């Protein structure tokens, strides 16, 4: 587009992917597509319509939702799940799509595998039939989750119809206190703007606190954009991004790298570009965040108390929060630090990366878990890396279980669930009713906080463990 108007990074990526526009909708070119074992509806429908995959080289696939995290030498024990995992093998083989299977160390959660392989790159449009596709925005990509019909459309045409999203800038100011991470930042943001706070918008996260984050921390922030209702969330690429990407299997090399890098450096938002909305979130003095309810917006610092719904004016909202407390089995006014847990889950596309495991291991080291705790690396390569660093031994000695990579207890579709009434400290992304099993109660927090909950049996500020 030949325009001299200053543009946001969102506009720049959008404009460079427009194939055509018609009746208010844009046909957008898709660079890269991720597939998983839940993608069978799309393949089934594609087959039923007699259509072929248009650009198989622009997709990769790996099973994550339905794979077991233990006893893999026996394969997938549940027949229904096995059909889906094996179905992905057959569907990708038929289409000529690269597939990282259960016996491949590159297997893992799609949103971990994409960045890890360098398949996710700045300036691209990336889609996947999973809402946490927003994760990939951390690398400066325009990435969003789509439904099965859209997956079918992308497979058949390598494009997608979209309406142009409104742009939103979330400026995160202040410096993050020592030991806190991306999870605390994104929970603070959602707590402030609400679960529908970014609906209809594509969000750019900016500001000193975002710049200071590692790639892992940025991936965590962008991962939960969808929990604020955003279609996508992204961070302009910088040296942190380029250093992370260099040398990864799908990253360009040599002269191609130089050419790509020159393009990537043009992506950041121009000075003076206008956003439809701007929100500022100050994280100075932030305490570790924990959720108390059944929406990610129900987030408070660990020194807070369970709020009283009676104080809410809007009747539907009041009723919804009262129901959330009833479901969670909590009483208004209870200090969060007094809530006891029955299970701990460390993993997921939100917090299953090496930095997350290191943070959790630092807390677990030399201590003992008081409740069952599960550690699930986000990919086979992360698991190998953690083992090379001895983190597996730290966890095992502390009484945590060390499992094989997959979505596990985040989505509760592979059998890793908990019983009715059980309460978890979980590093995942959703505390919805029934998310980790029918009647199960989920509290979201960072890996350090989840590990601290494991060793004390209740929500504990990990920085005060020695006083606990």
């Amino acid at each position, binding site marked *: 587009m030949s325009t001299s108007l200053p543009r946001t990074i969102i506009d720049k990526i959008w404009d460079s992917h427009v194939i*055509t526009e*018609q*009746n208010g909708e844009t046909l957008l070119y898709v660079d890269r597509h991720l597939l998983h074992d839940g993608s069978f509806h799309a393949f089934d429908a594609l087959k039923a319509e007699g259509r072929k995959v248009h650009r198989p080289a622009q997709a990769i696939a790996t099973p994550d939702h339905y794979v077991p995290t233990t006893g893999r030498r026996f394969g997938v024990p549940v027949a229904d799940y096995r059909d889906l995992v094996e179905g992905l093998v057959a569907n990708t083989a038929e289409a000529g799509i690269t597939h990282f299977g259960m016996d491949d160390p590159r297997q893992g959660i799609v949103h971990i595998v994409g960045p890890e392989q360098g398949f996710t790159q700045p300036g691209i449009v990336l889609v996947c039939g999973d809402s946490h596709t927003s994760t990939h925005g951390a690398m400066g990509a325009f990435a969003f989750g789509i439904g099965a019909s859209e997956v079918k459309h992308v497979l*058949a045409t*390598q*494009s997608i119809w979209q309406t142009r999203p409104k742009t939103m800038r979330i400026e995160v100011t202040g410096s993050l206190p020592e030991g806190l991470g991306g999870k605390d930042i994104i929970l603070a943001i959602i707590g402030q703007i609400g*679960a*529908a706070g970014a609906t209809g918008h594509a969000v750019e996260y900016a500001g000193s606190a975002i710049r200071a984050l590692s790639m892992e921390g940025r991936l965590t922030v962008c991962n939960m954009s969808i929990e604020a209702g955003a279609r996508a969330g992204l961070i302009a690429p910088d040296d942190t991004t380029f250093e992370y990407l260099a040398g990864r299997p799908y990253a360009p090399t040599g002269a191609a790298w130089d050419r790509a890098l020159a393009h990537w450096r043009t992506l950041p938002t121009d000075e003076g570009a206008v956003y439809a909305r701007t929100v500022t979130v100050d994280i100075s003095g932030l305490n570790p965040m924990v959720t108390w309810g059944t929406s990610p917006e129900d987030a408070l610092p660990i020194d807070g108390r369970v709020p009283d719904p009676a104080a809410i004016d809007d009747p539907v909202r009041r009723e919804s929060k009262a129901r959330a407390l009833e479901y969670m089995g909590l009483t208004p006014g209870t200090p969060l630090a007094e809530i006891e847990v029955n299970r701990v889950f460390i993993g997921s596309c939100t917090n299953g990366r090496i930095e997350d495991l290191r943070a959790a291991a630092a807390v677990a080291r030399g201590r003992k878990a008081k409740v069952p705790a599960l550690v699930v690396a986000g990919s086979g390569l992360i698991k190998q890396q953690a083992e090379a660093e001895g983190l597996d031994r730290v966890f095992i000695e502390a009484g945590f279980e060390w499992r094989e990579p997959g979505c596990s207890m985040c989505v509760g579709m592979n059998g890793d669930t908990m019983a*009715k009434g059980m309460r978890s400290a979980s590093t995942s992304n959703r505390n919805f009713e*029934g998310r980790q099993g029918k009647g199960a109660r989920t509290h979201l927090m960072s890996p350090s906080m989840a590990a601290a909950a494991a060793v004390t049996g209740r929500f504990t500020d990990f920085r005060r463990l020695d006083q606990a």
Partner: protein
Amino acid sequence: MQKFETLTAVAVPLEVANCDTDRIIPARFLKTRRSDGYGQNLFRDVRYDSDGKPDPDFPLNKPAYQGARILVADINFACGSSREAAVYALADAGFRAVIAPSYGDIFFNNCFKNGVLPIVLPADQVAAIRQSLTDNPGSTLTVDLENQTVTRGNEVWSFAVDPQRKECLIEGLDDINLTLQHRDQMSSFEDKYRAERPWMG
């Protein structure tokens, strides 16, 4: 896809903010093949107790709302997961339209692919509609997509809808066929794009 024609039907109110797609259809049912049907598991865990007995207080279980084809919900309806199964469950249970102040973005898009119309109206209007349906259980609404209106008795509310999506719903069109009409533009775009970004392979 089934064509969307003017719909006059019983409408059921759902008084829950941020109703997520896990609640609409729990994860354990997502392995179901499309042809096996999703309707019986719509709102499964809030609609039935652990023995499978219907909760008489849940709106969809009340006799007056039987046969409802329009759901009137609250803000951020169907937020969360991208599972198209949330739409399959609604569609298979007979729902053809949803009215809410706002939606989860992916669910909103998924609706149009399955012949379901998601209507956005201002929160106060939606609250008034829900109240009237609660006060007069079993009463009907009329959704006229052609004229983009929702009618209840003498009251008429207008809604916006993207023209292309409207056409696809009214005609029951598959959007892949629509896209393939742009085949030439697609291939010239790809040629140019690949030349400019050789590193993308």
